[in-house]
């Protein structure tokens, strides 16, 4: 392991993900604890009380929540009056894009993309919580995702940073956007200028 660290050629130096996998490192190592998702617990409780198996297949039956015209309108970046207080445009903590794919396909695609990036995924209906496995500048990156229905066969996907560093969030969501093959129409909030 020490040789791997001392490797002067940056390309061959051991990376943090590799360290985390290394047997020597794993000895006595306690990985950070992720909070249990309360939503998932409630589902289990509901299933017990109702005594039915319906809840087990709730996810695939329900439709995503729908957004109305005002919810779309209020997402205009011109309502970001916080910009008045900043000398440079703020790095936004949320981003959206649209897709014509079916909602459950969107959820699967995000999950498929997020896992290899090191995120753990928790889902309930059309909401997902992604938790990064690496500790970044401000703790672990956490992203909440929700899929909404805008119109028949048109969905809005919202990604919101709920923990961690905003710049890391932007790097992560760019990967989530481009590395999947969804028919993404356009990113709704395209001003992602870096703040101070």
């Amino acid at each position, binding site marked *: 392991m020490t040789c791997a660290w001392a490797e002067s050629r940056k390309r061959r130096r051991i990376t943090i993900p590799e360290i985390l996998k290394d047997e020597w490192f794993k000895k006595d190592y306690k990985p950070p604890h992720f909070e249990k998702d309360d939503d998932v617990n409630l589902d289990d409780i509901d299933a017990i009380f109702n005594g039915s198996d319906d809840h087990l297949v709730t996810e695939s039956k329900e439709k995503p929540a*729908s957004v*109305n*015209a*005002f*919810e*779309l*309108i*209020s*997402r*205009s*970046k*011109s*309502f*970001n*009056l*916080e*910009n*008045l*207080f900043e000398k*440079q*445009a703020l790095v936004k903590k949320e981003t959206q894009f*649209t897709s014509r794919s079916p909602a459950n396909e969107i959820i699967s695609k995000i999950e498929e993309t997020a896992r290899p990036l090191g995120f753990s995924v928790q889902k309930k209906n059309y909401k997902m919580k992604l938790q990064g496995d690496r500790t970044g500048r401000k703790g672990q990156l956490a992203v909440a995702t929700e899929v909404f229905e*805008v*119109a*028949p066969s*048109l969905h809005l996907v919202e990604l919101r940073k709920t923990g961690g560093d905003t710049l890391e969030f932007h790097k992560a969501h760019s990967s989530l956007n481009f590395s999947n093959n969804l028919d993404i*129409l*356009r*990113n*709704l*909030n*395209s001003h992602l*200028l870096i703040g101070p």
Partner: protein
Amino acid sequence: MGCLHSTATKQFPGHEDPVALASQTAFSVSEVEALFELFKNISSSVIDDGLISKEEFQLALFKNRKKENLFANRIFDLFDVKQKGVIDFGDFVRALNVFHPNAPQEEKIDFSFRLYDMDGTGFIERQEVKQMLIALLGESQMKLADETVEIILDKTFLEADLNQDGKIDKSEWHNFVDRNPSLLRIMTLSYLRDITTAFPSFVFHSEVDEVATQL
């Protein structure tokens, strides 16, 4: 104490006494003074006349003075209470007050209603919502078929327009916002709670004895 006030009135038409403004709003005197620092920055960015012009507002909001935007225009118009085409300091503070986390819900609901009631008829008409939706789509460079836009409008009006007269009145808006509280997200700026830490230079300019004003 008189010095600060009279100099300010000379350079800043419409400048009001921070103590008076604090008593009318959710801001403390120090917060009003901090807002004054912000106001000075914005109002001097194009023409140093102590007033915020549309261009200066656009510059502050978009970092681009030429950027015209339907929604920014609406917000500007609502700040420009006296309809003079410029925002003075009193207007600025009173308008921002509505966005304060502690401002009453009523005021936020009222402001948002007037924001969307573009022609000021007292009703949010379907045509106005369509115009705003199209503006939003243009801004995001998202193309939707006219049919899809109509579907979105149908769905919205089904939910909001309770008496189905094709327009949303004040009370229907109130009702709609109660059921969809996320619509008021834009009406609160948590920044306003920490305004004094964002603009600390006021500390050196203040001549107002804050203790004396807390009666």
